[in-house]
């Protein structure tokens, strides 16, 4: 795709992605929150396409729809007042989480400014689906087979937890930021990384500041989405032949799915046990 085409899609899409990602944690309606998260991650798929990673983009569109729609109904199940009619405050530690997210955003910006990113590699588009296929079936075979096992464990664990009882655990990987682009409106690596950093900060703020477990999971999904966006940016602008990077995106998607499966199963299990899905209430239960 031409630079112009990329810019045409990238700018509006990024704005929509960030706005919808932010609104996930602002709206009081759980159905809206879930669907906004789908919008954010689906639009991210469009950005992937604009950044020449067609396969990853379409896959993102496909996977996120299924996953986020399920997210919606788990939210409707486990959130009090899923319609948002009462306008309840669903946050805790508001200041601290905003501060942490702000600090992360600033830190990433500093890193971005100080880092000297590699110049754009000569070459064309990001790896196509066949290149990824060779990577998956060849060099990264072991990882691929582990991914299979991970999915199996997620299925088994999900069924097991949803039927019996369990506890909690949340992890979050990192993202990257950057400095200003030379040509303002043309998309470049720093711009993509900046968008990723913002998305990451939004996700972090949500994960830290929300009271309900499922909202926390949504925050984590956004952070994982940000990491994927960064990788796709690198694929487009600095390492077009890095099929292992594309493969990494697949692994992150798997991670998102696995995290969602196990997370939801934990929520079901905890809810059955204590009739709440609020993080604070569940923490009290531990002691």
């Amino acid at each position: 795709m031409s630079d112009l085409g990329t810019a045409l899609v990238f700018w509006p899409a990024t704005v929509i992605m960030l706005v919808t990602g932010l609104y996930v944690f602002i709206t009081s309606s759980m159905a809206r929150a879930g669907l906004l998260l789908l919008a954010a991650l689906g639009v991210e798929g469009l950005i992937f396409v604009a950044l020449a990673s067609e396969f990853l983009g379409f896959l993102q569109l496909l996977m996120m729809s299924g996953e986020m729609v399920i997210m919606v109904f788990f939210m409707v199940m486990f959130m009090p007042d899923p319609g948002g009619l009462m306008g309840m405050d669903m946050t805790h530690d508001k200041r601290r989480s905003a501060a942490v997210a702000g600090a992360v955003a600033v830190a990433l910006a500093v890193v971005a400014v100080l880092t000297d990113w590699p110049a754009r590699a000569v070459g064309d588009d990001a790896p196509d689906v066949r290149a990824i296929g060779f990577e998956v079936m060849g060099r990264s075979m072991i990882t691929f087979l582990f991914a299979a096992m991970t999915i199996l464990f997620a299925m088994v664990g999900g069924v097991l937890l949803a039927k019996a009882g369990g506890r909690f655990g949340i992890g979050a990987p990192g993202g990257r930021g950057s400095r200003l682009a030379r040509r303002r409106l043309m998309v470049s690596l720093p711009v993509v990384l900046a968008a990723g950093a913002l998305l990451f900060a939004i996700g972090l703020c949500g994960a830290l500041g929300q009271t309900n477990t499922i909202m926390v999971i949504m925050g984590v999904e956004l952070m994982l989405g940000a990491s994927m966006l960064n990788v796709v940016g690198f694929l487009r602008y600095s390492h077009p032949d890095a099929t292992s990077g594309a493969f990494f995106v697949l692994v992150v998607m798997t991670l998102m799915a696995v995290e969602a499966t196990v997370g939801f199963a934990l929520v079901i299990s905890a809810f059955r046990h204590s009739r709440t899905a609020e993080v604070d209430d569940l923490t009290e239960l531990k002691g």
Partner: protein
Amino acid sequence: MVLTPARSALVPALVVPDEQTWTVFGADPAAFGARPSFDPGTIRRLLAPAQVPAELAAALRAYRTALADDVPVAYGDVAFGGEVTLSTLLEPSTHGEHGHGHGEHDHGEHGHGGHHDMMAIVGEPSADGLVMEPIHLSYGPIGTPLPGGLVADVTLDGDVVAESTVRALLRVERPASPPDLLSPVAWTVAMAGHGVAAAATSPWLRVAAVEIERAVSHLAWLRSLGRLVDSQPLIDKCTRMLTSLQVSRRVLLDDDIGDAWLHAAIGQADFDECRERLDGLVAWVRRSWALRWRLGGRSVVTPSRARELALRGPAARASGVADDARVADPLYRALDFNPVVHSGGDAVARARVRAEEALASVGLAVDALAMAYVGGDARRADARAPAVFESPRGPITARRSSGTWELAAPGADATRRAAADAMIGSEWSAALVGLASFDLSPWRVGW
């Protein structure tokens, strides 16, 4: 949804109170160019009797607001014991109307607001240990494939029925008229057969009339079941059968033809032809794997449970209980009558019992007409005893003492309870199939 033009098609209509009542009463909505539709967005016509039963007035007024403004109204030349005329009913009311368009009549007080505390969890404990909030809704009283006037107040836990109450709204105000408009002939005959005003017509003709009504009723029910599960072949087959049965049936109901033998001669040939075609329909119902898949194993009532509930009529016969008032009737004994019994106890069994009974009924009618023709004699033994008749929905009794009628449909309440009971724990589609499979009558009896 919007663009459904069809020059020769039947117009989708809101049929008040319902298609089955119209058909059993002798006027099939198809003859008025209408077929019932249950999605307010698709309805292009309103087919209603000249007089609307008062109990339906509010529901009809509410439903009217969900329809497009320009839906024309067609009046049928029948009256179902109502007192509200349609024209006054449909005039725009000034109070208490909300112009939103959802199809069912969920009443505001059922919403989940009001009693909603921050972390309060309202609802019944569920089998899987997850306690959620229920949805309350009312299915009916009009605009559903069930008989109009029937309301199922349901509490849904997710899409599974947690609680259900089945109510009948309708009543016929004048005790002289048949108290159940879903089997008017049976009630009339039951009242006449008590001997107070013994009709001049031959008892064989009355048997034929009741049997044809049974066939029409069962087929109309089968068609409404077809509407519920959206089985077009079943709807089409039943409609074709009903059209020809209705034409033949006129002969029996027509008062102008006084001579029994003339009735018999005209009717017999027609019904004989109907029987042959009905044979094909019954074979189809037996054969259809799609119908078996949809109805099989739904709302099972075991024989012991049927006895415990004191079920009567076709619902009992589908559970292996050979309960049929006709067995004791000398007229039917003369016709070598054997009740149709199935042991499955599920919705399939109930559908089969009714389909096969419809076939048997047409056969009985043909035989009864033959008896009338040769003048076979049969007289009721004791005119004092309450006349027990097997109506299409089970036994009915009529006794006149000191100027007032004592009318009853033993087993009607048991069927209603069984139907409500059968819905519990089923997914919504399955619950509705279960509810429909009992063929409840919304016309209240016994005053």
